[in-house]
């Protein structure tokens, strides 16, 4: 990590005995306000944020105003080219591509935010515990991480997904019933959340553990320990703030990665349930006839690339804003 944050933390460590909790909170609020100001000055990041907000609003609101439903088939207009009636054309079943694209945006954004929140939470908690306590806690957590890590994550997700899909799809009884109903109401998204959450926290965990492993030997942590701070407080107040940069970089790659995994799953038919549109599903449907009707694949392909780019640029901007020394 960089010097400024480290110094700030050691100041805090030394001062924590003398300062009240309010004063400490004010200190950290100042840090975040500074970061926000720096982010506002980053045009690329703000443009990306703007794009994502517009996309989110369009995804939430537009289906209410669009003339065509995302699942209604216009059998007289299969593979129609873009026109006044269907702005982006129609797919192989004559469904309006613009409506499907925007409803697909709902799926992607939901998956990205919800799944990544689950992933980062699990990864940070596990990584801090393993890194700080070491010993058998570390051994236990890292053994599980190593075992799951040894699995190519996509393969594990595919296996878990085919299990969940079969479980939720078949004749369900007992405690699975409410879960299956929820999954059905969400168009198969619950399964995606579970599969991603169970399998994708490993990278964050390793990253946080590695950072804490090299941070916990530093003087400011030692001084906090000498002053009698409890492990929970040392992790929260001293170690995690210094790990925020790497965690944010991980989340930066994480949100778009979750979106990408959902699209990949839907691409091979293991993601959301049709007729729910997902960009991955739309692309795989478009691949069938890509030589004759490239417009079908074009819209979702551009949409997914732009959305992922937006999250990457925003994350980069956040990192630069939180880590002012990186930018001279």
């Amino acid at each position, binding site marked *: *990590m*960089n*010097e400024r944050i480290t110094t700030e933390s050691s100041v805090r460590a030394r001062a924590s005995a003398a300062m009240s909790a309010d004063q400490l909170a004010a200190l950290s609020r100042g840090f975040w306000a500074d970061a926000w100001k720096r982010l506002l000055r980053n045009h690329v990041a703000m443009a990306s944020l703007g794009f994502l907000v517009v996309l989110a609003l369009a995804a939430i609101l537009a289906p209410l105003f669009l003339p065509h439903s995302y699942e209604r088939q216009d059998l007289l207009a299969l593979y129609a080219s873009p026109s006044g009636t269907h702005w982006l054309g129609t797919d192989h079943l004559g469904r309006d591509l613009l409506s499907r694209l925007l409803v697909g945006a709902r799926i992607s954004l939901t998956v990205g935010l919800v799944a990544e929140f689950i992933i980062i939470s699990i990864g940070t908690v596990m990584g801090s515990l393993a890194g700080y306590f*070491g010993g058998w806690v570390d051994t236990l957590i890292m*053994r599980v991480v*190593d*075992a799951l*890590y*040894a*699995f*190519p*994550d*996509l*393969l594990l997700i*595919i*296996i*878990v997904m*085919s*299990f969940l899909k*079969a*479980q939720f799809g*078949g004749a369900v009884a007992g405690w699975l019933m409410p879960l299956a109903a929820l999954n059905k109401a969400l168009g198969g998204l619950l399964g995606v959340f579970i599969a991603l959450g169970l399998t994708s926290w490993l*990278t964050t965990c*390793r*990253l946080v553990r*590695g950072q804490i*492993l*090299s941070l916990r*030997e530093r003087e400011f942590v030692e001084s906090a320990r000498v002053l009698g701070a409890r492990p929970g407080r040392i992790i929260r107040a001293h170690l995690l703030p210094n790990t925020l940069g*790497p965690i944010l*970089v991980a989340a930066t*790659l994480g949100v*778009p990665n979750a979106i*990408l995994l959902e*699209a*990949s799953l839907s*691409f*091979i038919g293991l993601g959301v349930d049709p007729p729910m549109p997902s960009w*991955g599903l739309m*692309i795989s449907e478009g*691949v069938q006839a*890509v*030589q004759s009707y*490239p417009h079908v*694949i074009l819209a979702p*392909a551009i949409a*997914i*690339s*732009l*959305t*992922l*780019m937006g999250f*990457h*640029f925003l994350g*980069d901007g956040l*990192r630069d804003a939180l880590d002012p*020394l*990186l*930018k*001279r």
Partner: protein
Amino acid sequence: MRRYVVRRVLALIPTLLLIYTIVFFLMRATPGGPWDETGSRPVFPEIRENLMRKYHLNDPLWKQYVDYLSGALHGDLGPSYRQRGRTVNEIIADFFPISLQLGLAAMVVAVGVGIPLGFVAAIRQDSWIDRGLMLLAVIGISTPSFVVATVMIVVFGVYLRWVPTSGWSGLFSRQALIPLFALALWPLAAVARYSRSSMLEVIRADYVRTARAKGLKELAVVARHAARNAMIPVVTITGVYLAFVVTGSFYVESVTGVPGLGRYLVLSISARDYPVIMGTTLLLAVIVMIVNLIVDLTYAFLDPRIRYE
């Protein structure tokens, strides 16, 4: 250090057992079997019964669990259910070399090109080189491999007719360029980004300033002092990409028609060809675990401050 290596190698055993157990029970707990009736090919109950008996699928679950495990330990991964008369060992021998070649080549390209690009961008921070490279990197990360492969096939195969639209004729043919590029692009871009941000953190450290103050040339400062520490985060991440790539991206292989193990494996999952799934998974797991062990050892070698008690 030696004790650490021995301990890690021994630790592979329970880890492998855990993976075997997870896959075994998840696959068996999933409804549907290898001889489910499909509309076009009815399976008579007597025939299914005989098949089940032949492959010991009627045995108690614990017996199947132990039997397959003991076979695997003797290097016998069992028969394939889907391709009668072929063993999993033969299938792996057929399909894996292609995935391995393609994956290793993609990884070499990704690391060999990604790390230097990232370092150059960091050293020339905020120049047009930096901005240009990072824009390309973000585009690389943001484009799914199946989109890259499809678009390249349409452009180079359909419109320009430079390469056949699908198939495989060896790693050193023009045809291999599309799968190679599609597979390498994402890790390349990610490696470049990580290399850049980690070099940016290192390059302002006191010891780098000291190296400059001693009057060392910029190249020596970067190559001998900064690069070693800047490599640490890149190395930890490289293991992940290697795992991602070596297992053969199913998407790249299937879209470009490369007959590799990744594509075969996913077909096997939907066909519930248990022995193929299990054998392939165990093979990949062993490879990835060995890679991860090497990564961890490199980690300690690159940064002696990291302690393994």
